[in-house]
């Protein structure tokens, strides 16, 4: 699917604009606001949150699941990260607010350099930005897998 044309959804572009409109220090505050806005995980997933903890050292715990509506071809994202990882929660919240409910195609078309567009490299450091790249990549892979499984042969 590398031939998918990359296109920024309006909802995500709005968030990028928000980050671009402020100075470095305020970008951190903005990210913290996003972290605080990450919705709680719906009840049916609560008992699966333990999966989050089973990650390799150095990887940030993240719970991710996608609910698909094949009739409308849209996806609902469920994302969670522990309170001790507000940066990851902030990224998860950006991704959630920017992509939740979009169509499969819109999600796959999100530019892979989203992390760079937020302008966080200087304050967050490139190392930590890997987290948001990995998160987006995981969501896209999840959508691709779903498409493969549901496409009639």
């Amino acid at each position, binding site marked *: 699917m590398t031939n998918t044309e990359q296109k920024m959804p309006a909802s995500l572009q709005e968030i990028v604009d928000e980050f671009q409109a402020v100075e470095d220090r305020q970008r*951190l*505050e903005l*990210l*913290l606001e996003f*972290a605080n806005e990450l919705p709680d995980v719906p009840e049916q997933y609560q008992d699966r949150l333990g999966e989050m903890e089973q990650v*390799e*050292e*150095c*990887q940030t715990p993240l719970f991710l699941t996608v609910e698909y509506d094949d009739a409308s071809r849209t996806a609902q994202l469920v994302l969670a990260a522990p*309170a*001790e*990882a*507000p*940066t*990851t929660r*902030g990224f998860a919240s950006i991704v959630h607010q920017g992509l939740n409910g979009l169509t499969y195609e819109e999600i796959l078309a999100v530019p892979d350099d989203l992390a760079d567009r937020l302008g966080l490299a*200087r*304050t*967050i*450091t490139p*190392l*930590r930005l*890997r987290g948001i*790249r*990995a998160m987006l*990549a*995981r969501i896209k*892979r999840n959508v691709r897998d779903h498409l493969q499984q549901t496409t009639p042969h």
Partner: protein
Amino acid sequence: MADKDFSQYANPDALVSTDWVAEHKDDDNVVLLESNEDVLLYETGHIPGAQKIDWHTDLNDPVTRDFINEEQFAAFASAKGITPETTVVFYGDKSNWWAAYALWVFTLFGHKDLRLVDGGRQKWVDEGRELTTEVPSPTPTDYPVPAKREDDAWRAFREDVLEHLGKGPLVDVRSPAEYSGEVTSAPGFEDKEGALRGGHIPTAASVPWAKAANEDGTFKSREELEKIYKEEAGVGEADEVIAYCRIGERSSHTWFVLKHLLGYDKVRNYDGSWTEWGNAVRLPIVTGTEKGEVPAK
């Protein structure tokens, strides 16, 4: 649980308990610094009076892959209200990885009284102690510019590591999978090593940093630590030890253990670590679980 007796360690003054912090955090000669992996964690709440220190933006030079210089350190310490006589107390997330790293960098500049909170941030939080989002504004001091950053004493460069091979112990503190060099990243994850090759430096013993910590993030007893490092890792009674990891942060934790808790005389942290060694031209590596031999010259 009975209070842990810090006098068992080689340098009992290098550790403080959460009780000590609660009692002394407002002392005039005490400055509390929180150093986390997560850049936003301090903002969500911290120990009252603690200031934030960011290992990357505060301690690293923005241009050269190196630490800040003497002038930059003096300016930084002054802004935090630190004088050469201040007791600087570090704590942070992930069992103090980044707190130990900040403490080690302060060591390079010869600051005398540096301490780590046993158990770090998690212990303070688990004990239900007070957190605040209020950011202190210290009165700036005039910290004298240190004569010299003591790289020779506490820091190993790749040439030093090459020279050290076969002469003294090397401790690799990364996870076993990083040590052996197998591909560990799940599909879709970028290679978290950021290195061309996986494996370890020849002759290095594998002692993942977390072996030094209890479940609650506090350090293990001296007896347990001696067993792990002296015996199992074969550090023995060596005069010189070098520790490394991926970028030098986890190995700062081990550096602290070897230097302050076990009392090894000359312990250096190879901060270039695997992100340098695993990428560098003409440097030998070993894959698998064996330590490997010193390569022929």
